[in-house]
């Protein structure tokens, strides 16, 4: 028997259903977009929020964890934040709307997302990836704004481009489609932060043409009153290089999906993540990486520092397709637990259908090394400071690899700040 009575909607689900009814008429979009929204929302309406019975959401039972969804707040004030790197060109989305962008950089075009909704050009990319893509479905249903960023072929952008997605509470649903032309080079910083209770969904969708090189840095610093669902998806063309660095240092409920298709020979994808988890937060980084052509490479290093009653999850899945010979893919997830109640689940997976590859994964969980702690304290360094040094040592390697002094300093300052609050 397949007939099931759908369970009674949770308050969060009900709020989304009511919200869609109320918001729908005010959401931008041509008829194609409207149809895509309806299709996406039907997905949600039929299945509800995913529970632990859905494998992709096993460690993050969204139905249980998303306890409430605040109403939209038209009066909310969203404060732009100071740039992470000096001399950045900044595009700001505030409370889900494109606010302003420094659009005077040669080779760089910013367009408010509402333009792509109005002319329907975004419609085809609104469809969720698959049945598990609840973040995509919800975002497609509600997305109100953001920025489309296009970088011209051959452009070597010598200032960092910073996308700020800031809010003052309520609901925020943003998208940032990005195209990087052949041979172009750029450093892109994505800031996710705000104030007050909020439900945020945010998508970045990046296409790298051949020989394009991008360093993309995500700095997620939501307050502990925010549920934040995000997705970063990328496709890499021939010889394209994408280095994605993610630092999570906030949020009550965080699910970040990284979905990368390495589709061009010679392409390289690097993921580095520092998860700083404290309080009672739940943070889930889920990556799905597909190597679909021969001779591509990837490395993923995830470092987690978990304290208080925080919970963390890393799911990393690398699919090496049958034709993808000579793939070199490595994944490591290392966790430092700093309190008895801290918790981390790691689920690395390799699915390999090619026979001539070099692939591997590893996961470790450890506590602060007491011998190291004693050594540092025996030199007069207080316990707290000694712990800070050791935590920093644990994640510094991943940060210092960025080999951009200003960026390393900025991120280490974040780390010190987090530690001062939570160490």
């Amino acid at each position: 028997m397949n007939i099931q009575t759908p369970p009674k909607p949770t308050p969060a689900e009900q709020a989304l259903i009511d919200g869609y009814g109320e918001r729908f008429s005010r959401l931008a979009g041509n008829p194609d977009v409207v149809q895509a929204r309806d299709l996406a929302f039907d997905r949600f309406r039929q299945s509800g929020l995913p529970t632990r019975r859905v494998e992709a959401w096993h460690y993050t039972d969204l139905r249980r964890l998303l306890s409430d969804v605040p109403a939209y707040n038209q009066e909310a004030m969203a404060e732009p934040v100071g740039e992470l790197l000096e001399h950045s060109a900044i595009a700001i989305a505030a409370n889900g709307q494109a606010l302003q962008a420094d659009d005077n950089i040669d080779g760089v075009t910013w367009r408010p997302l509402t333009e792509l909704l109005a002319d329907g050009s975004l419609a085809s990319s609104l469809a969720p990836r698959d049945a598990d893509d609840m973040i995509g479905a919800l975002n497609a249903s509600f997305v109100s704004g953001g920025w489309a960023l296009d970088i011209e072929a051959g452009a070597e952008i010598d200032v960092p481009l910073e996308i700020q997605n800031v809010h003052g509470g309520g609901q925020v649903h943003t998208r940032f489609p990005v195209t990087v032309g052949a041979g172009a080079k750029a450093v892109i910083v994505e800031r996710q932060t705000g104030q007050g209770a909020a439900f945020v969904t945010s998508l970045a969708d990046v296409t790298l043409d051949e020989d394009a090189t991008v360093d993309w840095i995500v700095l997620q610093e939501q307050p502990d009153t925010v549920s934040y669902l995000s997705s970063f998806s990328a496709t890499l063309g021939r010889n394209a290089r994408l280095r994605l660095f993610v630092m999570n240092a906030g949020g009550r409920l965080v699910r970040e999906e990284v979905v990368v298709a390495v589709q061009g020979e010679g392409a390289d994808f690097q993921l580095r993540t520092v998860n700083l988890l404290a309080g009672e937060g739940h943070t889930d980084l889920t990556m799905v990486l597909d190597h679909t052509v021969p001779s591509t490479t990837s490395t993923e290093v995830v470092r987690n520092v978990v304290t208080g009653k925080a919970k963390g999850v890393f799911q990393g899945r690398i699919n090496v397709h049958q034709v993808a010979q000579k793939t070199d893919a490595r994944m490591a997830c290392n966790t430092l637990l700093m309190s008895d109640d801290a918790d981390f689940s790691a689920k690395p997976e390799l699915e390999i259908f090619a026979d001539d590859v070099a692939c591997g994964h590893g996961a470790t969980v450890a506590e602060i090394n007491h011998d190291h702690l004693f050594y540092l304290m025996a030199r007069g360094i207080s316990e707290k400071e000694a712990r800070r040094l050791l935590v920093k040592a644990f994640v510094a390697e991943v940060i210092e690899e960025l080999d951009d002094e200003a960026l390393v300093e900025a991120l280490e300052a974040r780390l010190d700040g987090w530690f001062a609050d939570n160490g």
Partner: protein
Amino acid sequence: MLEIKNLHARIAEDGTEIIRGLDLTVKDGEVAAIMGPNGSGKSTLSYVIAGREDYEVTEGDILWNGESVLEMDPAERAAAGVFLAFQYPMEIPGVATMEFLKTALNAQRKARGEEPLKIPDLMKRVKEAAGSLEMDMAMLKRPLNVGFSGGEKKRAEILQMKLLEPKLCVLDETDSGLDIDALKIVADGVNALRSPERAFLVITHYQRLLDHIVPDTVHVLYKGRIIKSGGPDLALHLEENGYADVIGEAA
């Protein structure tokens, strides 16, 4: 002055008693050598003085300048002037040696109510100290002790000791793993620090270190107690005759 009175200490985890009623006094300016066969409790004594959590003091006391250190954590003891040169210095990947030295120096200065050192001043001090120990500054650009040879680690310990200027230096088998040239350099480094207001506890298995760091007093540790004390000639006696007859005498 260091006064250890009827000290009993055991391994916290399994309760094995290692120090069993140890009495020892080391005056300011004195260099006291602790000798003893393997397993007599030499390293444990050094750890208990420095405050390592793996050991529990069950009886007795350790007084430093008249005050008990037992309630102090290792950092507080260090700030009070206690320094342990480790037998096996830890390699700590990811902690830059210079940042470590700066943090340690400034933590102790802060505890003593002094201003933090400015970077150029720190660099100058480190350079001088490293030079006198014939250490390459390039080594100090590496993470703490990582990839250092045994001898380099021991030199790095003495470098830290020079920089931190402690008042009680506990040297735990500093001679192990050193060739004769390195031993001489390290011994010279230690001798340069000898002063009327600084006490040394030199723990060693062999006489050879004491040829270079000549002690004022020599104490034989066996089964967690001092079983014999004497002058430098006691060390020579042990070198010639081994520990057996001293142990036999005490039994």
